[in-house]
C-alpha cells in the first residue's frame, strides 16, 4: 500500500510538471472546461426557471443535483479521463507490454498513471453550486446526511471509474476504436436530470444497473434527507460489484491479449 502511494505521488508530480510546461494551452483548456461546468447549470436554469417543479425537483433542489453532477464529472475527469483515453493507444502500439512488465498491478498503472489538472477548477464550481443549493433551501444537514452524501459521491466516482474501465478494456478485444473512451460520456451525462423523470424500463435501468442515479440524484436525496437506507446500501453493493467486474474482466482480457508488436 505504501509503495502504491509513493508511485502515485511520483505520477502526480510528473503530470504537474508537464502541465506547467505548456501554460497557454493549460489556461485555455481550463477556461473551456469551466464553460461546461457553467453550461450545465445554465441549461438547468433555463428549464427550471420556466417550470415550477418536475417530479418534486425545483430550481433550488436542482442546484444540489447539478452541483453534485459537476463535481463527480470533474473528479473522474481529473483522475481517470487521460488514462482511459490512452488505453486503446497503448494496446494499438503494443506499448501495453511495457506496463505488464512492471512489478506493480497493471490495472493500477493503466488507470492512475496520468492526472489531468485542467478539470480541477470544475470540482470547486460544482461544490459551490451544492453550497448555494443548501443555502437557498435553508438546509441544516446533520452528520448522518453529510456522511451519507460523501459516501455516495465516493461510490459514484468509483462506479463511474469501474464502468469506464470496463468499456475501454474492450479495446483489447476489438482493436482500433479510437473514441471508445468517450462511450461512457453521453450515458453519464444523463445524470444531469433527476432520474425520477425517466419512465418505463429506463428508470430501473439507470438506477440499478447503470450507475446514473448514483452520480447526482441519489446523493442529492441523501442531503435532503429523503433517501431510503436500503437504496444507499444497494448502491454501495453495486459499486463493489462493478469494481470487482472491472478487475475480473481486465484479468480475463489480458489472457486473450497477444500484443501488437510480436
Amino acid at each position, binding site marked *: 500500500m505504501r509503495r502504491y502511494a509513493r508511485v502515485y505521488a511520483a505520477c502526480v508530480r510528473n503530470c504537474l510538471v508537464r502541465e506547467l510546461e505548456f501554460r497557454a494551452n493549460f489556461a485555455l483548456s481550463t477556461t*473551456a472546461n469551466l*464553460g461546461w461546468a457553467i453550461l450545465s447549470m445554465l441549461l438547468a436554469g*433555463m428549464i427550471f426557471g420556466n*417550470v415550477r417543479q418536475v*417530479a418534486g425537483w425545483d430550481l433550488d433542489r436542482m442546484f444540489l443535483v447539478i452541483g453534485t453532477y459537476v463535481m463527480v464529472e470533474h473528479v473522474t475527469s481529473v483522475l481517470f479521463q487521460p488514462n482511459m483515453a490512452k488505453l486503446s493507444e497503448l494496446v494499438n502500439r503494443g506499448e501495453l507490454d511495457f506496463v505488464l512488465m512492471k512489478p506493480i498491478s497493471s490495472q493500477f498503472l493503466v488507470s492512475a498513471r496520468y492526472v489531468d489538472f485542467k478539470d480541477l477548477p470544475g470540482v470547486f464550481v460544482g461544490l459551490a453550486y451544492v453550497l448555494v443549493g443548501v443555502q437557498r433551501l435553508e438546509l441544516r444537514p446533520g452528520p448522518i446526511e453529510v456522511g451519507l452524501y460523501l459516501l455516495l459521491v465516493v461510490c459514484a466516482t468509483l462506479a463511474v471509474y469501474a464502468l469506464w474501465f470496463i468499456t475501454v478494456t474492450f479495446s483489447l478485444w476489438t482493436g482500433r476504436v479510437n473514441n471508445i473512451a468517450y*462511450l461512457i460520456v453521453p450515458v453519464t451525462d444523463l445524470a444531469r*436530470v433527476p432520474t425520477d423523470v425517466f419512465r418505463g424500463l429506463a428508470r430501473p435501468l439507470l438506477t440499478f444497473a447503470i450507475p446514473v442515479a448514483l452520480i447526482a440524484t441519489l446523493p442529492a436525496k441523501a442531503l435532503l434527507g429523503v433517501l431510503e437506507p436500503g437504496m444507499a446500501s444497494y448502491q454501495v453493493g453495486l459499486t463493489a460489484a462493478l469494481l470487482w467486474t472491472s478487475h475480473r474482466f481486465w484479468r480475463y482480457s489480458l489472457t486473450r491479449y497477444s500484443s501488437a508488436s510480436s
Partner: protein
Amino acid sequence: MLYLALWRIGLQEALQYRAESVIWFLFDVLPPIMMVFLWLTAYEGQASVAGYSLQAMLQYTVGVMVLRNVVTAHVEWDVSYQIRQGTLSMHLVRPMNTWALWFMTGLAARTVRALMLLPVLLACLVWLGSYLETPEWGTGIGALAASLVLAYMISFFTKLGIGFLAFWLTDITGTLTLVEVVAWVFGGMLLPLELLPDVLRPIAALLPFQYIYHVPMSLLLGRLDPAEVQTTLGVQAAWAGGLVLLAGAIWQRGLRRYEAVGG
C-alpha cells in the same frame, strides 16, 4: 461527377469506422431523448412552458435531434488534423478545390448519420405518436428547405474556420469546446431560446448559432409570421455569406503561414 466520387469516397470512409460513428451518434441522440422524458413529466404540472405547449416542445426536441445529426458539420477535426500532420499539402497539389473535398466528405458523413437516425426517429414516432403527428407546416416546405440548406452552410463554414485555426494553434480542442458551449445555450441546440432569461436573449441575436437550430425549428413549428419568414431567411443567407468570406480570409492567411512553415 468528380464531386459525386468525392461523396462516395466519404461514404466509404464513414462506413469503415462504424463503431466510432455509433459512439459519436450517442452524443447527439441521448440528450434530446433525456429532454423528452423530462418534458413529459414537467407538463404534468402545467400546460405551457414559455409559450410552448407539450406538443410543440416535443416537436422542437425531436426536431433538434434531427438537426444535431443532419445539419451540424464536424469538418473541423479532419481539417485541423490535415493541417497539423501536413497531409494538407497532398490535397493542395491536386487539381481540385480543397474546400469542395471537405464539403463533400462532410455531406457524406451527414448522409450516414441520417441513415443511422432513421430507426431512432421511427421509434420516437411510435413512442410519441400523437404529439408528433401534425407539424403545422407553417410557411411551406420551400422556406423550410431553404432554411435547412442555409443552416448547414452556416454550420459548415463556422466549423471550417475553426479547423483553420490549426494553422496557428497546436490544439483546437479548447476553442471548439467554448464554441460548443455557446452554441448549446445561444443556438437552441437543446432548449428553445424562449427559455433564456431576458437579459441573455440579445446575445443570441448577435451570434450565428440560432440560425442553425432555433430558426429552422421556429419555421417548422410555424412560429414566424409570413413577413418575418422573408427577413429571417435573408439574415440567414447573410450569415452564410459572411461566414464563407470569413473562412476564406482565415484560409488565405493560414496558407501563407503554412507555406512558410513547410519551407
